[in-house]
């Protein structure tokens, strides 16, 4: 199987702080990877390095055949980064919908402005994706009239309308009220079922166990464990993974 995302020897410093330490990772097509770990372990930073919302200090990122070396600058590098961003869709913890645009406008903004798609075609495509996440009925509503779960579903549709090769989710349910988490996870499951390659930073162990093909545990800027969810949850090798899983288990029981 070909890898869509290939990270080699990635290093990231924030000033003196060493947040990602020599990370190498390959994600094959159609795989769903969950990145878990305590806060501050570097999982969000790793995700954000893939589409260069954070600039890697060293190492290479390869997305669908486009190779970008970290720490480089200049026009050529900017073009490559732009190409990588077209291949990746991102969903944020805080949704980040554009508040001055309606739901549909949010979704078609990317294809029209970035890809130069004509409006009618973009609307057709946008409506299709809104329908897929069950949000077509709010097509002309503005984001401030939506619940958190609805906002996140629109944000997922917005990213999918760009037809990316890989979807990046940065704690997509962490800002949601508990009763709204389910609808977003269901949409994500659907996206996974349709064969999208997904990298998901999450605290939702249930989702990781049920949907992920692979769970990667991070601690102190390193990948400490990388396994199938059944193996990882039943037989964690690293004591830090065990501690993490135990904490979630006790949380679930409460």
């Amino acid at each position: 199987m070909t890898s869509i995302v290939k990270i080699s020897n990635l290093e990231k410093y924030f000033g003196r702080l060493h947040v990602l330490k020599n990370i190498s990772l390959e994600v094959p097509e159609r795989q769903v990877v969950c990145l878990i770990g305590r806060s501050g372990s570097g999982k969000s930073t790793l995700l954000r390095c893939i589409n260069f919302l954070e600039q890697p200090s060293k190492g290479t990122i390869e997305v669908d055949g486009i190779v970008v070396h970290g720490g480089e600058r200049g026009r050529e590098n900017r073009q490559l980064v732009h190409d990588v961003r077209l291949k990746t869709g991102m969903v944020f913890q805080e949704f980040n919908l554009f508040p001055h645009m309606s739901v549909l406008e949010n979704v078609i903004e990317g294809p029209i402005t970035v890809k130069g798609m004509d409006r009618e075609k973009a609307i057709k495509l946008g409506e299709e994706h809104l329908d897929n996440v069950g949000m077509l009925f709010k097509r002309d509503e503005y984001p401030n009239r939506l619940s958190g779960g609805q906002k996140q579903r629109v944000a997922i549709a917005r990213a999918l309308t760009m037809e990316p090769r890989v979807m990046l989710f940065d704690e997509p349910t962490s800002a949601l009220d508990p009763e709204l988490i389910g609808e977003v996870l269901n949409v994500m499951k659907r996206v996974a079922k349709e064969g999208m390659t997904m990298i998901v930073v999450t605290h939702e162990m249930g989702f990781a166990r049920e949907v992920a093909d692979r769970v990667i545990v991070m601690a102190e800027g390193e990948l400490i464990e990388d396994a199938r969810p059944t193996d990882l949850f039943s037989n964690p090798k690293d004591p830090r993974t065990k501690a993490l899983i135990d904490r979630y288990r006790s949380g679930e029981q409460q």
Partner: protein
Amino acid sequence: MGIFSGKEQVQKSQAELLYEVQMRKERHFRANVGLSWFILLLILILAFSGQSLTIGSVTFRGIKVDTGFIANNLSFIAGGLGETIRISLMSIALAMILALLAALGRLSTFPPIYALSTFYVSLIRGTPLYLQIFFFFLALPQLGIILPGLIAGVLALGLNYGAYMSEIFRAGLSSVGKGQREAAIALGMTPSQTMRRVVLPQALRFAIPPVGNEFIAMTKDSALVSATGFVHELMWRSTKVGRAQFHNLEALIMAAIFYWGMTMILSYLQSRLETRLAKGDR
């Protein structure tokens, strides 16, 4: 289910009751404020009516104004309204452009641009508006630059307000969260697309109400331009006829009424605009 919906109805009507009481209180308050305004206005009119009023042993004698002068010069002074509005509109347009540029300059990481922006704001805010107006009318001609009165006035007012309003636009730009930029970038937008499509529309919406306030202030500050004698707006016209016929009192009262009326209308429009923007708060 049935029980619950019944309970909800009771709660709802209680909330409605509370709301009604609150609204009644508010209406009552507003009515009293309106009445007090009316009385204050009546006193003011009485004070300039020339009538005397005796309460007990105390007699108030009203100021007598020359109604003949007012009638004769009303249309002349009113003729300055258009000029006042014209100079204000042109100046606010210039000020908005300068303010936006200055605000963007403040965000620049390129030192000369940042410096230019802060230099402009510092220079303009560090000198009086009155001086700036005279600079354009009196100092520039010495260098051989003679501007038409209106243009010089608009330049002075626009430059001055632009420096003050740059803060408004800066606040508007910084009101747009980092997440908005990141979402745009993640979609693949270039920095200029991000600015045009995502940041500016939100920043400008944020800036509309305070810009309205600045415009109202500007209609009054435009009176300073009269000092140069080249723009025949409200203030110039009222001082001209007032001085010539030694009826400054009447002339200034007339101008004051025009300014006051104008700002009341503009403030009303401004509050309407603000509620409309708040409703569509997106």
